[in-house]
């Protein structure tokens, strides 16, 4: 990286940047018809966080219902529809596209020294598919009524309910194609467009994570696509593919569904893991510990993660042999995640740690992700899983992983890269306090769910037994604290991106390629084609050992 020709910083960084419209286009058309990966990344950011807000509002309402036993706020039908929509919006419209389509789109080409992704027009098409798909999903709101099946669309219930399952499922199907196209675009980009000198083991770890993620997207999403298509066809034509009455097997639906939807969890968590490595390397001012181990464990997680879907079905009546195999493989998938965590901690050893907001997010991530991951072991074990599955324990577990792990790092990554994307800085103090507030709110919200789950509180209930009242109320209050923090964080970020003070090209002292280009980056990303000679996290000033 030291070899890079870094142009002297100019006063007006915005000039010539991707934020400046080209080709005489103005206003919104300059954005929605642009094939620039950076602009598409921003388009995705806007779309994703709009849906995230919808999901958060739904989540708050779901919690509010739990303020007292007996469910007085919503009718059962309304509650069932709300948790379905919360799941569908959060899973399919927010966390699965998540980091890859937003920050991945923006930074993958820059981090490998390319001008754009391999297929820029396909990239824009993916965004349109995503938007169309989500509009189709939301159409269900006004057409046949919201689906009330849960985001898993389990048969035979999803075939029998009269709500708008068909339309919502079809929307998810379209969004799935957007995901597939993004995956193949990224894979081709990483294979073909790396800058001269950027060998596989000189790639930043975020790129490695995106590479593993893209494979999962390519390999797993089509299975979901066909499964959802089968639901649509079954409902429209009355085919008995999954209905027991016609001799179909509902458990087979669960197999097909989880063949995709378990690997989807790794689509959600691998990119954040990549970002954790980036942030740690930058703020410890030293190279990452065990680069190859971290890179390879991403691939290992993608690979083993593909073999463990059956652990969602231990009480569905699989054969004991299948229970044995899936439980065994589930424990194996914990190992590469553990390796990553140990390497991250070791990367802090003898660093020169500057705990700026992005690094604080990593620390919060470490706590929440470890709780989430370790509680996952409890669920992977057959004896305890039978007791805990489909209770609040599971709800707590996956919120710790996906929200506490994945989404917190999404926020952390926004704090990390916002100065690069807009050339401006947010208020760091407010950012840190917002995080502290969110961290407390998060734990208040979800930790009681572990306890309630163990005590036998099933999920997807619009009411509960009186003995859970205290815990439920703590959890409800936690949700308010969390949301307060979220609002502060977003206001701070949005204000920072528009009005914040200008910063230089490399405010954090990062070493990967994106820090060598102006902030915000120019249309072509680099003024001169970069040539890579160093490993990605080479800090000149650090002592080498």
């Amino acid at each position, binding site marked *: 990286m030291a070899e890079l020709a870094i142009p002297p910083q100019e006063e007006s960084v915005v000039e010539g940047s991707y934020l400046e419209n080209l080709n005489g286009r103005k206003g919104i058309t300059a954005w929605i018809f642009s094939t620039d990966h950076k602009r598409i990344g921003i388009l995705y950011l806007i779309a994703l966080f709009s849906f995230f807000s919808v999901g958060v509002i739904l989540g708050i309402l779901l919690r509010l219902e739990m303020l007292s036993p007996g469910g007085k706020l919503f009718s059962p039908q309304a509650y069932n529809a709300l948790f379905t929509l919360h799941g569908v919006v959060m899973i399919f419209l927010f966390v699965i596209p998540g980091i890859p389509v937003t920050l991945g789109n923006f930074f993958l080409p820059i981090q490998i020294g390319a001008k754009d992704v391999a*297929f820029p027009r396909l990239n824009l098409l993916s965004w349109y598919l995503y938007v169309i798909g989500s509009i189709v999903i939301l159409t269900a709101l006004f057409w046949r009524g919201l689906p009330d099946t849960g985001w898993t669309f389990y048969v035979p219930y999803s075939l029998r309910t009269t709500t708008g399952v068909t339309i919502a499922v079809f929307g998810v199907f379209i969004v799935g194609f957007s995901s597939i196209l993004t995956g*193949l675009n990224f894979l*081709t980009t990483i294979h073909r467009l790396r800058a001269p000198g950027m060998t596989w083991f000189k790639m930043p770890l975020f790129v490695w994570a995106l590479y593993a993620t893209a494979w999962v997207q390519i*390999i797993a999403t*089509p299975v979901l696509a066909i499964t959802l298509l089968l639901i649509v066809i079954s409902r429209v034509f009355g*085919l008995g*593919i999954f209905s027991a009455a016609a*001799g179909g097997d509902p458990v087979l639906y669960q*197999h097909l569904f989880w063949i995709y939807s378990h690997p989807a969890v790794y689509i959600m968590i691998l990119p954040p893991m990549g970002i954790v490595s980036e942030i740690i390397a930058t703020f410890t001012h030293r190279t990452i510990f065990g680069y190859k181990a971290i890179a390879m464990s991403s691939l290992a997680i993608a690979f083993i993660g593909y073999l463990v879907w059956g652990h969602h079905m231990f009480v569905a009546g699989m054969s004991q042999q299948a229970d044995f195999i899936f439980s065994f493989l589930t424990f194996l998938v914990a190992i590469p995640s553990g390796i990553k965590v140990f390497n991250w901690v070791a990367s802090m050893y003898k660093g020169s740690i500057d705990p700026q907001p992005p690094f604080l997010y990593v620390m919060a991530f470490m706590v929440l992700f470890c709780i989430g991951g370790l509680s996952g072991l409890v669920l992977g074990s057959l004896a305890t899983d039978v007791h805990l599955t489909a209770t609040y324990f599971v709800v707590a577990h996956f919120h710790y992983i996906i929200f506490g792990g994945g989404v917190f790092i999404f926020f952390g990554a926004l704090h990390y890269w916002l100065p690069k994307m807009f050339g401006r800085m947010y208020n760091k103090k407010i950012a840190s306090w917002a995080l502290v507030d969110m961290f407390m709110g998060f734990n208040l919200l979800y930790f009681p769910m572990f306890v309630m789950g163990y005590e036998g509180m099933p999920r997807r209930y619009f009411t509960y037994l009186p003995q859970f009242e205290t815990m439920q109320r703590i959890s409800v209050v936690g949700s308010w604290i969390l949301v307060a923090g979220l609002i502060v964080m977003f206001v701070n970020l949005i204000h920072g991106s528009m009005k914040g003070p200008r910063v230089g090209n490399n405010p954090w002292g990062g070493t990967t390629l994106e820090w060598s280009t102006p902030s915000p980056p120019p249309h072509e990303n680099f003024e001169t084609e970069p040539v890579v000679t160093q490993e990605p996290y080479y800090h000149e000033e650090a002592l080498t050992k």
Partner: protein
Amino acid sequence: MSDITIPEARQAAEHAPAHKKDTQGVKMGMWLFLMTELLLFSGMFLLYSVYRYYYTKEFHQAGMETHTMFGTVNTMVLLTSSLTMALSIAAIERGKKWLSVTFLSSTIVLGLGFLVIKYAEWSTEIADGIYPGSPKLLQHPRGFELFFAMYYLMTGLHGLHVLVGCGILITMLIFIIRGKITQDDPVRLEAAGLYWHLIDIVWIFLFPLFYLVN
């Protein structure tokens, strides 16, 4: 803005002039897409195998009801279309534009022919009262209906791919005629060819599973 804008492949930069179209990149994208298609169908194949395992006897009996003749003819039609597809690419690579056009047109005609035969086959079956939920099938044991549900689903999905494939090939035909696909830049035709061959491969597996069980 060009059709598929691909920043140059810097890796291959050492023995290539600047601003070269990354043909391997286009093919790679296509191959990855084919993998997703393969996995899309594999979900169906998985369903088929499990149900065949559950209802071995019923599937066997139901398989007797399909028309082996239609299936065999269609297999041959599709295999021949694959040949003409490959020949069309070989022709464009030798710069023989009109020969390539001829071969590609035959591919499209054969593809459409496949669909026509498929249509005739389905019509015959539906006229015979063989379709999911039909009174005739409901008299049989329940594996029967599953077999035909799978049959219509899988051949239907495959037929849809043939239709889309024909659309793509017609576009390619126009490109060749207009000189957008040439001896020097045949990659889009090659990519379309890959897609067409995959459709062929899927059929190669559908054929024994639905037609050869007598």
